[in-house]
C-alpha cells in the first residue's frame, strides 16, 4: 500500500537524523528502528518501509555497479576500483556484473550517475547521428 503523507514526513525526519559527519551511522539507524518498533507509533510499518527506501537510495550513492560484456580480469577490476575509490572516497563499495548486451566496453553506475562507454551505447549514438 502507498505510504501516507504523515508516514513519509516521519520517515524523512528519521532519515535526517541517521547521519554522523555526513555518513550513515549504523548505530543510530538501529537505535531508531528499535525505538520505533518498541513504541509502535501510528502507521509505524509505513514509516519503516519508507525509511528503508530512503536508506536504500542513500546507500546506492556510495555503491558502484560496474558492468562489462565479459568478466573482467582481476588486475583490471582492481585498477577500476582503485580509480573509483580515489575519486569517490574509500568507503565506496563496488559490484561487478556481466551484461552481454553491452557488446564491449564498460558501464559504471554510481547512484543516479551513469558513465557509459559500452559499444552498445556508442552504436546507439551513431544511430542517432545518422538518422
Amino acid at each position, binding site marked *: 500500500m502507498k505510504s501516507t503523507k504523515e508516514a513519509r514526513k516521519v520517515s*524523512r525526519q528519521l532519515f535526517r537524523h541517521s547521519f554522523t559527519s555526513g555518513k550513515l551511522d549504523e548505530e543510530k539507524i538501529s537505535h531508531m528502528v528499535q525505538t520505533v518498533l518498541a513504541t509502535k507509533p501510528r502507521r509505524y510499518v509505513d514509516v519503516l518501509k519508507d525509511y528503508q*527506501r*530512503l536508506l536504500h*537510495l542513500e546507500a546506492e550513492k556510495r555503491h558502484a555497479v560496474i558492468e562489462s560484456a565479459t568478466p573482467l580480469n582481476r588486475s583490471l577490476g582492481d585498477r577500476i576500483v582503485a580509480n573509483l575509490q580515489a575519486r569517490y572516497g574509500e568507503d565506496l563499495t563496488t559490484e561487478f556484473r556481466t551484461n552481454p548486451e553491452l557488446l564491449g566496453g564498460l558501464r559504471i*553506475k554510481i*547512484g*543516479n*550517475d*551513469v*558513465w*557509459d*562507454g559500452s559499444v552498445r*551505447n*556508442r552504436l546507439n*549514438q*551513431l544511430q542517432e*547521428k*545518422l538518422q
Partner: protein
Amino acid sequence: MSTILQELEATISGLKTDTTRSNVGTVREIGDGVAKIEGLSDVMLNEMIEFPGGLYGIALNLEETEVGAIIVGDYTEIREGTEVRTTGRLLSVPVGKGLLGRVVDALGQPIDGKGPVKSDETYPLEKIAPGIIKRKSVSVPVQTGILPVDAMIPIGRGQRELIIGDRATGKTTIAIDTIINQARLNKAAEEGKIKNHKPLYCIYVGVGQKNMSIARTVDVLEKAGALAYTIVVSAPASEGATNLSRAVRRRCDGGMVHGERNGCADRFR
C-alpha cells in the same frame, strides 16, 4: 562519383562517439500517463526525460527523492523498474511559417502524410506569456465575414472571444467561416486589392474531438483554399490527457512566435 565518396568520407570522419555521462532514474509508479520516478537527481523542471523505445516524458513535479513526470505518447509499454534518463533539453516544438497548411499533433509532428515539417526553429512548450505591458492594445479589427457579428459585436486582433452555444448550433461553423474569410482577405492583399493588410494566420486546435470531425474540417478548409493560411493541431479524444493539454499550449506557442516577431505578442493568443 568522387564527390559523393568525399562527402561520405567527411560524414564518417565527423562521426565520433564518446563515453557519455547521464543521470538516470527508475520508474516506481505508473498510471494514466503519469510516472513517479526515483532518482534523476540532476533533472530540471520541464526537462524532457527519455524512456526506452523513443518515448519522452516531462518532469513536472520535483520532490526530494522522486520526480513526477507526464508521458507524451503511448505509456502502456512502460513498466515499474524501467530505467529512464535526463536529456538536458526542455520540451520544445517546431514553430514558424513552415507549419502553415499542415496538420500536426500536440508535439508538432505532422500527421497529414505530407512529409516532415519544414521548420528549423523550435520553441519551448512551457514558457511564461509576455506581460500586459509588452502587449499592443487591440486596434485592428478581425473581419469574420459574418455581417451580424462584424456589425454588432466586432472583434479585434489580439482579443480573446469565446463562442458559447448548445451543441450542433454552429459554433465551429462560425470559427471555420472566420478562418476562410481571413484566407480570402490574405489572398486579396497578396494580389494588391487591399492595402496595408497584415496577413492573419489561423490556428485551429481540435481538442478531444473525433478524428472524423477534424478530417472533415481539414477538408472544408482545403476546398476553400484556406488551409495554406492555417495550422491545424489535432489532439483527438483517443489521445491521452497529456496530449490534450499539450495541444492547447502548442496552439499558443505557434501563435506567440508569429506575434513576437511582429512586435505584438498578443496577436494570435
